[in-house]
C-alpha cells in the first residue's frame, strides 16, 4: 500500500469517526435545548392561560384558538396531573401532518373545571436537525477534501526527500555504483536517515571490496604453490630414467594437483557468482549459445556416438553476463555428455522461453534435493568435482532463472526458464 493511500485511509477513518460522534452528540445536545425551549414556551403559555381563566370563566363548553394551538374544554372532575406528549396534527399552513408537542392540564375557573390542551409545532426543531445534518455533511466533505489536498501537498513537499532517497537506493547496485551522496534536506529526520544510509552503504561497499580482494588473494595464494607443485612434477615426469612404478606414483600426484587447482578455480568462480561480481550484462541468445557449444563439442559427441536432436523453435534470450551464460550452458551440455552412455541421446528443445537439455544415462533418477548442492556427488566418478551443477544453479539464481530437474521416460531433463 502506498504511503499516501495509507495516510488517506487513516485520515478518512478518523475524520469519519470524529464527525459521526460529534454529529450525534451535537444532535442530542441541540435536541435537549430545543426540547427545553418548547417546554418553557408551553409553561409560559400555561401560566398565561391560567391567569386568564382565573379571572374570566369561559362562556362555552369548549374553546379553540384560531391557530388550533389552544383547546379548552369543560370537564367534570379536576385532574391533578400535567401530561406532555408528542402527536401528529394536520397543519393548515404546511398542508401536511406535522409533529406537535402536546401539553394537557386541568384548571379550575369559578366552580367549573376545564381541561386545557396546548399544542406547539415541532417543525422548527426538525428543520434544525435537518440543517445540522446537512451542515455536518458538507463540513465533513470539505474537511476530507482539505485533508486530501493537504496530504498530497505534504507528501509532495515533506516526503519528497524520502522518495528521492528511495529512488537512489533502488538504482544502487553493490560493486557497480560509486558511493552515493544524498542531498541535504530541510527535515532533520530525513537527514538522519540519509546519513545512516550513506554510512551503511559505505560499509557494505567496503566489505564487498574487502571480500572480493580476499577471495581473489586467497585464490592467488593457493594457485602459486599449486603452480610450483605442478611444474616440479612435470619436470620430474621428463626424467627418462623413471621406472613404471615411479611414473605411476608421480602421475597420481600430478592428477591430484590438477584436480585441486580445478577445484580451486571452481570454488573461486562460485564465490564470485555469489558475490555478484559479474556485473556486466547483455541480452544473451541462449539458442545460439547452445548451438555454438554443441558445435564445439561435436568431435566428442561423434566419438561417443551420441545422437543429438535439436528442436529450437522459439527464441530464448536472457539478460545475463556473457561469461556466466557460457559457463552455464557449457556445464549443462558437458554434464549431459559426460553422464551419457555409449550410443546414447541428447535432446535440446526450447519452448516458452524455456530450454530443456535431456540425456540418456546409465544412472537412474537423481535425488533433486541434493542435486544442486556443492560436492553432492551422486556418482562415484572422480572425474567430476561435484561443483558443476552447483555453479549452474548459482548462476541461474543470480539472474532469477529457474533450473529444474526431471526424470522422464528414462531421460534426465534439465530445464532453464525465467522464474514467474
Amino acid at each position, binding site marked *: 500500500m502506498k504511503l499516501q493511500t495509507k495516510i488517506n485511509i487513516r485520515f478518512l477513518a478518523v475524520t469519519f469517526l470524529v464527525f459521526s460522534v460529534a454529529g450525534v452528540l451535537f444532535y442530542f445536545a441541540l435536541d435537549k435545548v430545543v426540547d427545553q425551549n418548547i417546554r418553557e414556551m408551553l409553561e409560559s403559555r400555561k401560566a398565561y392561560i391560567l391567569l386568564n381563566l382565573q379571572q374570566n370563566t369561559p362562556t362555552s363548553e369548549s374553546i379553540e384558538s384560531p391557530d388550533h394551538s389552544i383547546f379548552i374544554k369543560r370537564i367534570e372532575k379536576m385532574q391533578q396531573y400535567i401530561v406532555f406528549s408528542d402527536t401528529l396534527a394536520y397543519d393548515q399552513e404546511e398542508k401536511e401532518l406535522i409533529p406537535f408537542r402536546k401539553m394537557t392540564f386541568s384548571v379550575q375557573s369559578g366552580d367549573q373545571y376545564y381541561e386545557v390542551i396546548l399544542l406547539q409545532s415541532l417543525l422548527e426543531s426538525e428543520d434544525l436537525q435537518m440543517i445540522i445534518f446537512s451542515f455536518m455533511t458538507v463540513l465533513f466533505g470539505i474537511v476530507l477534501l482539505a485533508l486530501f489536498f493537504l496530504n498530497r501537498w505534504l507528501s509532495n513537499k515533506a516526503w519528497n526527500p524520502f522518495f528521492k532517497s528511495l529512488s537512489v537506493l533502488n538504482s544502487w547496485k553493490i560493486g557497480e555504483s560509486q558511493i552515493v551522496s544524498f542531498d541535504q534536506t530541510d527535515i532533520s529526520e530525513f537527514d538522519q536517515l540519509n546519513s545512516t544510509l550513506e554510512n551503511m552503504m559505505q560499509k557494505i561497499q567496503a566489505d564487498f571490496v574487502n571480500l572480493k580482494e580476499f577471495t*581473489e588473494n586467497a*585464490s*592467488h595464494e593457493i*594457485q*602459486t604453490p*599449486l*603452480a*610450483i*607443485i*605442478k*611444474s*616440479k612434477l*612435470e*619436470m620430474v*615426469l*621428463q626424467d627418462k630414467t623413471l621406472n*613404471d612404478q615411479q*611414473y*605411476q606414483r608421480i*602421475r597420481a600426484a*600430478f*592428477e591430484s*594437483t*590438477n*584436480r585441486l*587447482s*580445478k577445484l580451486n*578455480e571452481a570454488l*573461486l568462480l562460485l564465490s564470485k557468482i555469489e558475490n555478484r561480481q559479474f556485473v556486466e550484462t547483455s541480452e544473451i541468445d541462449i539458442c545460439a549459445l547452445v548451438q555454438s557449444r554443441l558445435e*564445439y563439442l561435436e*568431435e*566428442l559427441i561423434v*566419438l*561417443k556416438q551420441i545422437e543429438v536432436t535439436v528442436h529450437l523453435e522459439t527464441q530464448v534470450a536472457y539478460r545475463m553476463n556473457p*561469461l556466466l551464460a557460457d559457463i552455464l550452458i*557449457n556445464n549443462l551440455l*558437458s554434464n549431459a*555428455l*559426460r553422464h551419457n552412455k555409449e550410443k546414447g541421446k541428447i535432446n535440446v528443445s526450447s519452448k516458452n522461453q524455456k530450454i530443456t537439455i535431456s540425456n540418456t544415462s546409465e544412472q537412474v533418477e537423481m535425488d533433486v534435493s541434493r542435486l544442486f548442492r556443492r560436492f553432492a556427488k551422486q556418482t562415484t*566418478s572422480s*572425474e*567430476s568435482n561435484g561443483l558443476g551443477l552447483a555453479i549452474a544453479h548459482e548462476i541461474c539464481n543470480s539472474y532469477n532463472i529457474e533450473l529444474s530437474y526431471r526424470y522422464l521416460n528414462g531421460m534426465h531433463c534439465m530445464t532453464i526458464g525465467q522464474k514467474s
Partner: protein
Amino acid sequence: MIEDELALCETIVSYLEEEGYRCEQAGTVELGSEKVNLYEYDCMLVDIGLPDGSGLSLIKELKKCHPETGIIIISAKNSLDDKISGLDLGADDYLTKPFHLPELNSRIKSLLRRRKFEGKQELVIDKITIQPENRQVFVGLEQLPLTRKEFDLLMFFVSNRGRVLTKESIAEHLWGDFADSADSFDFVYSHIKNLRRKLFERTKTDYFQNVYGTGYTFIA
C-alpha cells in the same frame, strides 16, 4: 623472467634452459626494470603481482625502450581486467597459473616465430615440413591434410620435442579453459591416434611414444 616465487622461477628457467634458451631472472619490479633498461631480450615473461608493484608497469617500460621484445604475462589472477589491460599495454600473450610448462614453451616458441621471422619460418622435423603461417604440413613435396585440431596438436608436440606431454596439458592446449579432464582425454586419445596414423602412412615412421599412463612424447 620476472617472477617473485623463486621455486616456480627456477623450474621454469631450468625447463627453458633445457630447450636451449638463455634466461635471466628478476624477482621485483625494480630489478626487472634495471635489466629491461640495460639489456635487450627476445622475450619477457612477467608476473603481474610482484612484491614492489605491478608487472604492468614493467610492460609499459619495456614497450618504451625495446618495443620488439615479446611479452608473455604469467599471472595467478584469472581476471579479465588484468588480461585486457595487459594485452592493451602491448603484451603478446597471457597465461594463468598454474599452467603446464610445455604450454608456456609452445607459446614462447610461437611468439618468437611471429616476432623474429614474421611467422615465415619453415620448421623441418625429420621428414616433415611445417609452415606455421599458413598452417600447412608437407611430407616431402606432398601436402598432408590435417584438421585444425590435428595441426594444433602437431605444433604442440613439435614445440616440445622429446618432452613428455601429459594428457592434461594436451587437453588444455587444445581446449583451453573449457578442457574437461574426463571427456577430453578420450578426445586427446582419438586425435593422437588419427595424427599418428596420418603421419605413419606417409613417412613410415612412428613419431609418437606412449609414456606409461601419463601421456606422449614426440621423438624425431
